[in-house]
C-alpha cells in the first residue's frame, strides 16, 4: 500500500489525541514511578525505577509510527505526548520536551532503518532496540549512568530493554493487531 507523507488536519488532530491519551496514561503512571523509586533508593538502585517503567514512557512513539506510517510520526507522537504531559503538570516542566524528542527520535530510528517500508514485527523490534540504546545513552550523560559499576550498568540496560520490549513492542503490537482487525486505519493514511 502506498502511503502519503503529507499531514492533514485530521491526522494532526488524531495524533494529538492519541498523544493526549498516552500523556494522561503517563501521568497516571507518575506515582507508580515515584513509589518504586522511593522503595529502591535506600539500596542505591533508585534510578532503576526509571528503567522499569521506561517501556510505558516510550509507547506513543512506536504506536504513532505504526499507525500513521509517515516519516516523523513516531518522533511527533512521542514529542506531543511529552508536551501534553508537561501541561498536565508532569514532574519535569519544559525539560520533559527534551526527553520527548530523544525518545521520539530513538523510536523513529527503528522505522527509518527499514526505509519506512516495513511495518511489521521486525521493524517494531528494531524500534525497541534503537529506543533502548538511544535513551540509555542519554541517561548515561544526563543522569550520570556512565559512572556506575559495569555490572549495574548492564543490569539496568537489560531491565530497560525488557521493559521497552514488553510495552513498546509486545503491547503496541497487540494494540495494532486489534486496530488492524477493525480496518479503520486503512482509509486514514491514504
Amino acid at each position, binding site marked *: 500500500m502506498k502511503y502519503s507523507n503529507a499531514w492533514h488536519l485530521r491526522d494532526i488532530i488524531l495524533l494529538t489525541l492519541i498523544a493526549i*491519551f498516552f500523556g494522561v496514561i503517563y501521568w497516571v503512571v507518575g506515582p507508580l514511578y515515584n513509589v518504586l523509586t522511593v522503595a529502591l533508593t535506600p539500596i542505591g538502585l533508585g534510578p532503576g525505577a526509571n528503567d522499569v517503567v521506561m517501556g510505558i514512557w516510550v509507547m506513543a512513539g512506536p504506536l504513532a509510527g505504526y499507525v500513521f506510517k509517515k516519516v516523523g510520526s513516531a518522533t511527533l507522537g512521542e514529542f506531543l505526548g511529552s508536551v*501534553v504531559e508537561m501541561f498536565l503538570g508532569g514532574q519535569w516542566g519544559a525539560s520533559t520536551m527534551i526527553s520527548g524528542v530523544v525518545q521520539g527520535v530513538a523510536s523513529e530510528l527503528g522505522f527509518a532503518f527499514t526505509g519506512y517500508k516495513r511495518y511489521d514485527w521486525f521493524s517494531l523490534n528494531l524500534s525497541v532496540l534503537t529506543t533502548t540504546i538511544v535513551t540509555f545513552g542519554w541517561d548515561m550523560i544526563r543522569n550520570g549512568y556512565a559512572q556506575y559499576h559495569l555490572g549495574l550498568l548492564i543490569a539496568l540496560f537489560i531491565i530497560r530493554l525488557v521493559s521497552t520490549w514488553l510495552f513498546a513492542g509486545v503491547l503496541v503490537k497487540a494494540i495494532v493487531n486489534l486496530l488492524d482487525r477493525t480496518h479503520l486505519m486503512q482509509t486514514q493514511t491514504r
Partner: protein
Amino acid sequence: MNPSLKFLLAVLIALEISFTSTWLVNLGLAVIGLLIILSSRPTLKRLAMLFFVPLIPALALAVAILLQSNAGTHFALVLFTRIYAYVFVGSAATLTTTVTDLVMSLEQNARIPSKFAYGFLGAFNLLPKIVSEVNVIRAAGNMRGQVLHIWSPQLYFKAILASLDWSENLAEAMTSHGFTEGAPRTYFKRIRIHWWDWLIFAGSLALLQIALFGLHLR
C-alpha cells in the same frame, strides 16, 4: 517574555546543564527558576509539590552514585542539583505561559504551519473529555468483569477508537467553520518578539556561559 523564546531558552539551559557538572550553576538556575515561579503566585500546594516531587529522583540518583559508583560526593551533588534546576527552570516556563499563548506564538513567531497549531490546540482542548473517556472505558470494562490495566491492549485500543471518531468530527467542525489548510490567515491577537525578548534570551545564555566557565576555571 515571548513564549517561543522562553521555551527555547528553558530547553537550551536544560540541555547545557545536562553536559556540564557545576553544581553551583545548577543551584543558581534552580533559585532563579524558583523566583520566577514565585512571581507567578502559585498555590501553596503546587509549591510544596514542586519541592517534594523532584526530591524523589534527585535523591535516588545521588544515593545511587554514592553507593554504586566511585564518582564521589561532588558528582552526587551535581546530579541532585541538576534535577532541581531542570524542574524549576522548566516549570518557570510552563507555569507562566498558557497553552494558547505558546501555540499562537509558535505559529506567528516560529512559523509552525497553522494546521499544526490549530490541530494541536483543538485536540488539546478535548483534554477533560479524554480524561473522562479513560474513566468511562475502565468503568465499562469493570461492568463486564474485565479489569483494564495499564498493560491491557483493550484500554489503548478503545482510546484510539475514540480518538479516530473525535478527530474526524473535530476536523470537519473546523473545516465547516472556515479553517482551510495552508490558507493565509490574519490574527486576532498578534504576538511579537520585542528587542528585550532577544536581549533576555541572549543575555541569559551569555551569563550562563560566563558562570560555567568562571566556575570551571576556578
